[in-house]
């Protein structure tokens, strides 16, 4: 077998690329942060954009309210991109952008920023995430319908292969599938199916471009295949997680050879970057997250045959709020200790010949192939979005059930919960980054000033050209040229997106909650159902809850689980999905006659959005109590309660049935006075103390 292998490599491997997912407030502030991070030994950039930029809105759009500069940096036009990259030599930097629906636009701004620096696009290196299917499935920052989105991706691949050859135009993401609850088998199967959808779309484009020259088409397809990389996740079960990556490498090579006729070994290699698991990070005893992150980093570095090309690690406090530069430095240091202090880079693949590892891999391969066949039966990943989404909601529900039941141990959360006070979270801001609320107003002024100062005729002409290109048949017109022209002319993110939305139409992804199977009724749930039935007697109607996500945050996994459990408790659930304005929530609550409203926000915009929603509700004459769930820092809870929120739930409240019981009690308390004119009951129930019961 491998008897001639030496136990050591002649030379240690070069370390992987080290990045930190970063960006907040403004382009200028983020630029300073990037420069500091690079000075600390970070070797690449990973740009976090704020939600308006990710979904194609300018800071002054109604939907952007509360979200500007929160989870990332706002980039509205070429001026912002130039400021973001100021003093960073783009010809040498390797930049990863977590950007999907608006990826074509942000890449164009990056190309224009490079031009400003005198750097040709041929020299640019980096990655645009650009995986829209997982946005429909898990992350929610889509902007256009599936077919139009796939066209944009195919256009970018075609453009970059020719003009920006060192760019990875798409990162197929299994990362967010795991965050949405995917099992390792689902993670492999859905991301591979997703890759097939992208590659098939690209192949169509390639074949159309070289209809008369089969050899040239095949040569180009080899290059396209070679440019596709993955963005994966790694959970704390790090041995199985490593096996998962080996299984993905096997499937990828197989796919390349068999489906796309790729022959070059170099192009067949499975290349991936990684951000390790955030779902498993806890709010309770958050210091434990450090060891979770270290172990997860091992999953993607231990075995040389399936080692990550680039790594970014989350910070220990992600379940609490936004990490500060110091928190991110700690995570960078974890990578550096692993790469420069340990001996992990000195050996050939340490799992070669391991019966256990091979067994794990083949088990995963078998499961993944079966699940890929199911997706193929649905007609491929684009057609199977609803199926996959429902399967993920189901898996996530099962995961939560296991944690609730104690079958899956989460140290500090459902076991070993006795704890001393943490010195890490004792400062005034609770150990997290708080974005200055003045940033939003500044950015609104800034983008308005930008619009006023540019050559409007040039912008109008460029946008008209974009609309025309979008309406043209996709095989003949690549949208990248018109997009770069609009970027150069000074158009804004919102204008680019609006122009395309007008041609392509807008879209709402399936929620997966309607199809989710009912939970098996344990004693607790049965008891709750009886309680709901009793409440129904008193109300005259079945208790009705509205669940929705205000703002642009598309991380709907939590809201979906609440909706499904409320249904399983016997309530009528109006699930409104994501991206709602306060006015929409108020109109729905009024028209639907709901008894209680559940809102979920993970992006940190709760301070602005929740009071705005409550204001809109009360103005519409809706007095139903409001409960809020999400990543809500402890120090914001009192303010939210003062704004009229009846209860606040954070990641440490992992027992969803218990949350449901609170909600049922809350509704019952509001209707306590039998025969009273309860339709006008005050929201005094806010102080009934049932909130945060799990604290």
């Amino acid at each position, binding site marked *: 077998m491998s008897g001639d292998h030496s136990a050591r490599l002649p030379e240690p491997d070069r370390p992987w690329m080290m990045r930190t997912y970063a960006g907040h407030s403004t382009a200028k502030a983020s630029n300073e942060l990037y420069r500091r991070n690079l000075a600390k030994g970070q070797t690449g950039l990973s740009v976090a954009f704020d939600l308006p930029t990710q979904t194609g809105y300018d800071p002054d759009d109604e939907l952007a309210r509360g979200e500007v500069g929160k989870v990332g940096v706002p980039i509205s036009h070429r001026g912002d991109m130039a400021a973001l990259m100021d003093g960073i030599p783009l010809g040498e930097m390797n930049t990863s952008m977590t950007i999907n629906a608006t990826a074509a636009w942000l890449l164009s701004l990056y190309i224009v920023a490079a031009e400003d620096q005198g750097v040709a696009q041929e020299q640019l290196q980096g990655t645009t995430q650009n995986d829209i299917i997982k946005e429909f499935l898990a992350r929610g920052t889509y902007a256009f319908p599936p077919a139009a989105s796939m066209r944009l991706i195919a256009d970018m691949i075609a453009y970059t292969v020719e003009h920006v050859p060192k760019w990875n135009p798409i990162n197929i993401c299994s990362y967010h599938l795991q965050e949405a609850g995917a099992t390792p088998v689902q993670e492999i199967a859905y991301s591979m199916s997703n890759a097939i959808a992208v590659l098939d779309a690209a192949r169509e484009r390639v074949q159309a471009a070289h209809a008369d020259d089969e050899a040239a088409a095949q040569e180009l397809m080899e290059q396209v295949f070679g440019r596709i990389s993955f963005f994966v996740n790694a959970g704390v079960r790090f041995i199985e997680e490593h096996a998962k990556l080996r299984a993905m490498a096997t499937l990828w090579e197989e796919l390349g050879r068999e489906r796309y006729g790729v022959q070059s070994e170099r192009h067949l290699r499975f290349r991936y970057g990684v951000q390790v698991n955030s779902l498993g990070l806890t709010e309770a005893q958050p210091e434990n997250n450090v060891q979770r992150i270290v172990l997860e980093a091992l999953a993607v570095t231990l075995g040389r045959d399936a080692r990550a090309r680039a790594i970014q690690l989350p910070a220990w406090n992600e379940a609490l709020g936004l990490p500060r530069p110091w928190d991110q430095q700690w995570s960078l240091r974890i990578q550096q200790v692993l790469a420069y202090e340990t001996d992990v880079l000195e050996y050939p693949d340490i799992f070669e010949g391991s019966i256990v590892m091979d067994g794990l891999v083949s088990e995963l391969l078998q499961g993944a192939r079966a699940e890929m066949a199911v997706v193929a039966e649905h007609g491929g990943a684009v057609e199977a979005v609803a199926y996959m989404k429902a399967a993920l909601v189901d898996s996530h529900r099962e995961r939560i059930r296991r944690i609730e039941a104690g079958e899956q141990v989460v140290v500090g959360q459902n076991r070993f919960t006795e704890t001393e006070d943490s010195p890490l979270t004792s400062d005034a801001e609770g150990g997290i980054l708080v974005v200055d609320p003045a940033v939003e107003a500044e950015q609104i002024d800034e983008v308005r000033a930008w619009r006023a100062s540019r050559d409007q005729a040039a912008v109008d002409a460029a946008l008209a050209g974009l609309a025309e290109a979008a309406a043209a048949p996709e095989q003949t017109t690549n949208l990248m040229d018109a997009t770069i022209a609009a970027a150069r002319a000074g158009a804004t993110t919102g204008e680019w997106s609006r122009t395309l939305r*007008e041609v392509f139409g807008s879209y709402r992804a399936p*929620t997966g909650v309607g199809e989710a199977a009912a939970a098996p009724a344990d004693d607790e749930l049965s008891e709750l159902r009886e309680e709901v039935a009793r409440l129904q007697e008193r109300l005259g*109607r079945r208790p009705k809850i509205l669940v929705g996500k205000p703002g642009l945050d598309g991380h709907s996994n939590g809201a979906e689980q609440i909706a499904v459990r409320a249904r399983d408790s016997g309530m009528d659930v109006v699930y409104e*999905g994501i991206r709602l304005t306060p006015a929409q929530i108020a109109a*729905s609550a009024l028209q639907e*006659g709901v008894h209680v409203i559940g809102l979920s926000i993970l992006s940190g915009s709760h301070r602005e959005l929740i009071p705005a929603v409550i204001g809109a509700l009360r103005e519409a004459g809706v007095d139903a109590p409001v409960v809020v769930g999400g990543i809500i820092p402890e120090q914001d809870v009192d303010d939210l309660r003062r704004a009229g929120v009846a209860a606040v739930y954070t990641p440490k409240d992992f027992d969803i049935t218990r949350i449901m019981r609170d909600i049922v009690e809350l509704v019952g308390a509001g*209707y306590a006075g039998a025969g009273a*004119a309860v*339709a006008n009951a005050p929201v005094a129930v806010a102080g009934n103390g049932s909130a945060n019961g799990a604290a």
Partner: protein
Amino acid sequence: MSGATGPQGVDGAALGGRLRERDLSAAPPALNLLESTAPADREQAAALLREVSPAALGGEAPGHVIGITGPPGAGKSTLLSALLKRWRADGSTVAMLAVDPSSRHSGGSLLGDRARVEFDPSDHEVFIRSTSAGERLGGLAWATRAAAHALAAAFDVVVIETVGVGQAETEVADVADTVAVVVQPGSGDVLQFLKSGIMEIPDVLVVTKADLGQLAVRTRRDVSAALRSLGSRDTRVLAVSSLSPPQGIDELVAALGEHRERSSIGERRLRARRANALADYAHEHGERGLRALGGRRAAEQLLERQEPTLDTAALVAALELGAKGAG
């Protein structure tokens, strides 16, 4: 008992009066009341319905009640968004009742469709309500039927959206003036249902996703052929595309309007009220109740002898009285 004494503490007659005056803001509390099963609320609900009965209105309610049904994934929500936009552009006020199946295990339900119909939250002349299919087997929930009648007094258009093929459009035909079945290209099920008689022949048949080209054309042709072979000449078959630019929406709106013009709404509603009264009575009193009236046929004859302006509740009362008299 009288006055505001139910759990909801609302005055049904006053709400009914507001609907009759076409005060659209009465719609949410009216629905809350009609959905209530508390006995005192049910009395108020009956008072509400009396206020919008043909007798109180001096004729049939002016709104056009349209049932729209079809299998999941046929594109109903997108179609409804396009229709809503079109109706609003014409100045019509619109109420939509989206009926979702309940979970059999818990009784709870996920009412998902609302999020999928695009609406302008500041537009107070649109009312969208999701409701679970609820308790009555083999028919729309009592509350849904009652709501459709009540809302037709206030809104120009009342849409009842249900999911499914076969049972669903039969149920919705009990309450709608016009029934439209929505199918997507390539769906063989609907053809089978039509031919086998599982599905009643709708007033309008809509083939969505006309942008799919040949497939849509073929489906439209197959459906038309099936309808002809069943001897149906009245059913309009239309192809629509909701993708921009939308196609066929204007034609669909016109076809729905035409159906209303040429059919006798009064007769249809009267028939529906009688059928609903009988179903409600049978649900309440079972086979024994029907026997007390001398069987189903005799009950139908009793209903036919009643004043045509009586609402469903009054017709049920008439049946109950008849059963007492016979017993």
